[in-house]
């Protein structure tokens, strides 16, 4: 489940029309959500609030061994009008599972942002500041997010901790996204790491006027994307490269939605494939296979996600008194408006070839969002349950 501050950040992305999914680092997002989710450890309570459209606070207290906590504050220059009450939040927004990619949007022209008054430009760039202090550990996280233009974004994150070398690190990330392709460059002060990432989407260019409607009658109506990343640590002279491709069906696809990815690390000889299908309205399945051509090591992971909806109570309509008096039946109902189904909970489970199992049950009780998780290692017969945890969130 997304933390409240992440939820607010996503709300910022949505409000500023930034497509976070169009990035090479999000290529395997579906598999990551379904297979590599983290289970909570110990008991954790989150108390958060979006007190004004521009300001959010969050307090967390947890007990893993000893009691620890975190304070976080967020300020954004762009007023956010997302639902923040934990009783009302749509669980689809905070629980990440199978990620359906959307049709590419055409980016706004930069002049649409311009505001003039008295011959001067007065428009400001949308900005977000975020800080979090972990208390007994004296660990400080800070984030600065700025939309430079409709196609560009700057993201700087920093960590300060006396335990770290040099007292902390800063990561600067510049993102450029025109829809058809996106590119990111990053620099980290830790080891002087420089990185470049790029993603190219095959298919129609959203910047051009679309002449003909999409041919959804094809067997698969989807989009193929390919990308690459490259890193080089200028101080420790180390690097890394990977290539990847993804095919995913678009919402207009008539069959079963699916996502398949292939990533390749030519330096390390690592090859990884994932395949995820949304088998039903409430069920998603995912598998991942890793293979290393140099060491012949392999790994297999299976996972599933099951949404449980609340059973709808069928309303039995009684014959109205007026109809009874007039010796007739009630008029047949008009086409009922489908009420949105309410989510009772989401079960996520995954198992790998070493029989390490992770279970996660997320849902809402009254006004509280909860996450209950456990990781189990079946290989260790003496103590199979390795961790168990409960996370409770309340926000207003």
């Amino acid at each position, binding site marked *: 489940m997304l933390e409240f501050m992440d939820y607010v950040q996503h709300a910022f992305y949505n409000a500023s029309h930034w497509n976070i999914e169009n990035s090479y680092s999000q290529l395997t997002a579906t598999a990551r959500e379904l297979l590599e989710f983290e289970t909570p450890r110990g008991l954790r309570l989150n108390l958060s609030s979006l007190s004004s459209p521009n300001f959010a606070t969050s307090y967390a207290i947890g007990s893993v061994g000893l009691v620890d906590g975190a304070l976080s504050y967020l300020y954004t220059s762009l007023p956010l009008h997302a639902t923040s009450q934990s009783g009302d939040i749509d669980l689809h927004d905070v629980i990440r599972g199978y990620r359906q990619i959307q049709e590419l949007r055409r980016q706004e022209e930069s002049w649409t942002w311009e505001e003039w008054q008295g011959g001067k430009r007065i428009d400001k760039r949308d900005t977000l500041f975020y800080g979090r202090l972990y208390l007994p550990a004296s660990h400080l996280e800070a984030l600065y997010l700025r939309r430079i233009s409709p196609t560009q974004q700057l993201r700087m994150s920093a960590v300060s901790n006396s335990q770290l070398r040099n007292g902390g690190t800063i990561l600067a*990330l510049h993102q450029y996204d025109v829809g058809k392709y996106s590119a990111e460059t990053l620099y980290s002060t830790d080891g002087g790491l420089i990185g470049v990432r790029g993603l190219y989407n095959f298919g129609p260019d959203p910047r051009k006027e679309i002449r003909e409607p999409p041919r959804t009658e094809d067997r698969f109506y989807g989009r193929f994307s390919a990308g690459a990343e490259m890193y080089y640590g200028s101080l420790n002279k180390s690097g890394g490269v990977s290539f990847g491709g993804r095919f995913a069906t678009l919402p207009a696809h008539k069959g079963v939605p699916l996502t398949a990815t292939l990533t390749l690390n030519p330096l390390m000889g690592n090859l*990884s494939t994932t395949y995820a299908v949304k088998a039903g309205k409430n069920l998603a399945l995912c598998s991942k296979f890793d293979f290393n051509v140099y060491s012949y090591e392999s790994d297999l992971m299976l996972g599933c996600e099951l949404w449980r909806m609340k059973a709808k109570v069928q309303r039995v309509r009684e014959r109205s008194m007026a109809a009874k008096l007039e010796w007739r039946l009630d008029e047949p109902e008009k086409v009922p408006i489908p009420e949105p189904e309410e989510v009772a909970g989401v079960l996520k489970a995954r198992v790998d070839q070493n029989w390490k199992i992770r279970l996660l049950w997320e849902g809402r009780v009254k006004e509280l969002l909860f996450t209950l998780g456990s990781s189990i290692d079946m290989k260790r017969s003496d103590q199979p349950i390795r961790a168990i945890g409960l996370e409770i969130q309340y926000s207003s």
Partner: protein
Amino acid sequence: MAFNFNWSPLTADADFYKMAQDMLTTALNKSPKPPIIVDDILVNELNLGSVPPELEILEIGDLAEDRFRGIFKMCYSGDAFLTLKTRVQANPLNTYLFSKPSFTSPQPLAASSGLTIPLQITLSEIKLSAFIILVFSRQKGLTLVFRNDPLESLKVSSTFDSIPFVRDYLQKEIEMQLRTLMMDELPAIIHRLSLRLWCPEFRAKEEEEIIQAEKLEKEEVAVDPFASPPQDAVDARGNVLDATEISSLSLDSGSEIHSLFSQKNLLRLAALTDSHRTLSLFTPSIRDAVFRAWASPSESAGTSTPVTPSLMRSTSSLATSSTTYTFNKGSDDGHGNIPSRPSLVSLPSATTGLSLGAGRHSRSHLRKKKNRIVNLRKAKTTDDVSESGDGESETSGVACSEPIMPTRIIEEPEDNIITPPRSPSGRVRFRTSSIDLGDSPRKLRLSTPSRALPLPEQVIVDDEPATTPRPRRPSLKKSTFTTPQPEKEKAIPSLQLSPAPELIPGGIIEQAWVLKMAGELARSRDAKARGGEGFWSSSSEGENEVEAPPAYQAKAQV
């Protein structure tokens, strides 16, 4: 003067290699490993080679038969080699991300995917030149300290020899690691090895520690306060509990256990243990307690350390009434004199309970408590005196057996719980045969004192715990003398421990006195024998601990 250094026996001993490999493996895996190493470091092969190091004696500070101190100059350029095996992470990006906060991590998609490579490193052509300070004493073992950095050069060959960058890196890293190993770990290893070779006490201590650790685990469960409940057991509100209530208490209900011991005694015991720690001269006296310090070995026989309550219990039971076994019974007298008929009815089960109870001392505390309200007395009150006399005669058997017990006790003080009171259990089982005899055994009993004396050895020899009665036992004599009430047999251990035999009524006093003297004699004899040994061993141990040689305190490897 000549020194004879033997290099070959070390190298010839296959056992030594195995041991040294194990020690090196544990030493290498002790410190937290860098993220690049993803598996344990295993010492695959170790060979000291055939070329011994050259030693030059620079100075000899101390020389005696059992100790030596000197400074050497050592040069070594032999053919020893060492092979290590482990697995390393070959992706630098993976290790780079390992210890970084995730918040500022660049979160690469697949560029950080791991590649683990098995790595084999062989260290050979080791050249050493060092000044060594060697201190040897038979008790403290061998201490070896390098005065300077001993490593001159060595050759590292690994799986990655073809890549010059990796080779150089490994060479550098390993040289550094080996230096710390030589300076810090090796002296500790050698010291431990030497202790194992020369000091039998150390070896014994090590083994004992293992046994102790195992025992501790068992004992946690085994010490059952209900095995020997205090005599005036009261619950939290001060109401007197009787035996059935106590037995109904379980170990799980922790709070109730505490209320079974009197608060005052607990405080005193606490003060007593504190006085050990604080060296306080004041030791609170605890009434009716036999302290280890002035208890002779035989007296401490029946109990392991924490079970002093049993001592108190037994004495008092003797004093109040020799007929009942459990204290609570003894304390509330109304119950103590249960009419004999009903108790007779409950005999069959009672006997097993008794034999168990007798076995409790022997088998220590593993037994669950049984209800032991047994009164075998037949109604004749006039027999009371003779009965108690019988009880004493019973104990006489044990008292005579005392000489045997201590000899066993000495060797393993932990085990002494097992040995001594087997005799009662041996006897108990015959009771069933005699139960139905009614009065007749009593007559026989009168004659027992004289006969009991020669018997105890026999009794002790049969070691079976014997929880079930065995009527097929051949000797009738025994059966006669085993007839007396079980309660008295319960009291037997108490007599050994009792400081006050004067309480015993009339005719038996002589008998008891003779027995006590015999026991006393035997005990003192044993005390002498044991005292000699004990002092020696304890003093040597003490020295070991007090003066740990400097090299023993190896620094934590960085």
